[in-house]
């Protein structure tokens, strides 16, 4: 009895050692999990620079990490009123005046973002403008009547290991991207976020705006976990903003 126990114990130890060795050799870190068992997205993530939601991007991320991509929406399906808005020559360049970039555009900025994840909420932090956004995932619903805002209001729920975020309540004053594609206050977003590997996030966003676009538009992106030790920097847009609309303010040394 005692002998068979020893054999069983040694056998289990050998299996455990082999398992650990294989895991170490493959180098595959497991995807971390939240206390509720769902994938934990916490980390500093490099995203593709998406200056135009219509276009594909492949290769270097905004923060110059390799491996990001975006499958763009292709030609944008403007409604007549959306087309008129898009072709206006007197668009107000709100970003050049350090106003909030807006939700969709924040994810395409030339700087990374971070997630801090909790079972009840996802905190998104964009380096651009040092801006944050909270996504409750505690089962609450979006109110029917939302106060219009620059970044909208979000709620999230899980479908398997994919976090689905719905966002609306926009003020219509931002653009979808730096290519100045407009959206109205009817904008509704659905994002699907998953972490299939330790170092990778799959991010899909469906953009619906029946006022300006005849059909929903989709972007599929890959985010890459930044190297250990990389953190977000402070970004204070108003600090030294000098040439908006091509009219440069002379600095003290130039006066």
């Amino acid at each position, binding site marked *: 009895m005692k002998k068979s126990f020893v054999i069983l114990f040694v056998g289990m130890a050998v299996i455990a050692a082999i398992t650990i060795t294989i895991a170490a050799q493959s180098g595959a870190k497991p995807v971390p999990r939240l206390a509720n068992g769902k994938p934990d997205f916490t980390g500093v993530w490099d995203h593709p620079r998406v200056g135009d939601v219509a276009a594909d991007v492949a*290769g270097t991320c905004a923060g110059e990490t390799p491996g990001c991509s975006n499958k763009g929406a292709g030609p944008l399906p403007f409604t007549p009123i959306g087309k008129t808005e898009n072709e206006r020559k007197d668009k107000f*360049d709100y970003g050049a005046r350090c106003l909030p970039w807006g939700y969709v555009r924040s994810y395409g900025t*030339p700087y990374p973002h971070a997630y801090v994840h909790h079972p009840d909420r996802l905190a998104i932090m964009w380096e651009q403008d040092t801006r944050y956004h909270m996504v409750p995932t505690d089962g609450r619903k979006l109110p029917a009547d939302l106060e219009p805002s620059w970044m909208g209001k979000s709620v999230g729920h899980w479908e398997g290991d994919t976090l689905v975020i719905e966002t609306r309540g926009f003020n219509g004053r931002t653009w979808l991207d730096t290519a100045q594609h407009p959206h109205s206050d009817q904008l509704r977003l659905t994002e699907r976020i998953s972490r299939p590997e330790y170092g990778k996030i799959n991010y899909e966003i469906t953009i619906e705006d029946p006022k300006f676009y005849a059909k929903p538009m989709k972007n599929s992106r890959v985010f890459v976990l930044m190297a250990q030790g990389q953190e977000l920097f402070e970004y204070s847009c108003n*600090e*030294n903003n000098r*040439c908006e609309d091509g009219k*440069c303010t002379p600095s003290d040394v*130039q006066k």
Partner: protein
Amino acid sequence: MIRKWLALVVLSLMVATAAYAHHSFAAEFDGTKPVKVVGKVVKVEWANPHIWLYIDGKDEVSGRTAVWGFSGGAPATLTRRGINRDFLKTGDVVTMQGFLAKDGSPNASGGSVTFPNGRSVFTNSPEDKVPGK
């Protein structure tokens, strides 16, 4: 050290395409009007949304002499690239290349700094228009 800088410059050039930065490059600078100023560094503003470098010197393209302001990338972008706030000091003699501001003032996008020893540093956002391209 020089190899490291060269690698950074080459990397920067590889990822550079004329597109958009904090706001549109095209809204502020004229990509058809290059400037190449040789002079002394008067001031470095290591600040968001773009660093500004001021060079007292002459533009070799137009012959115009002024205190020129050059707009570079964001401090975060440059720090991640290994360039910190001390890379240029007041009094350094450099050659600075970029594109003239649309309003014609002595300001430009700041694409690259070349030191007297030939070392060259790309200072702009990765996607801004690169001088000589």
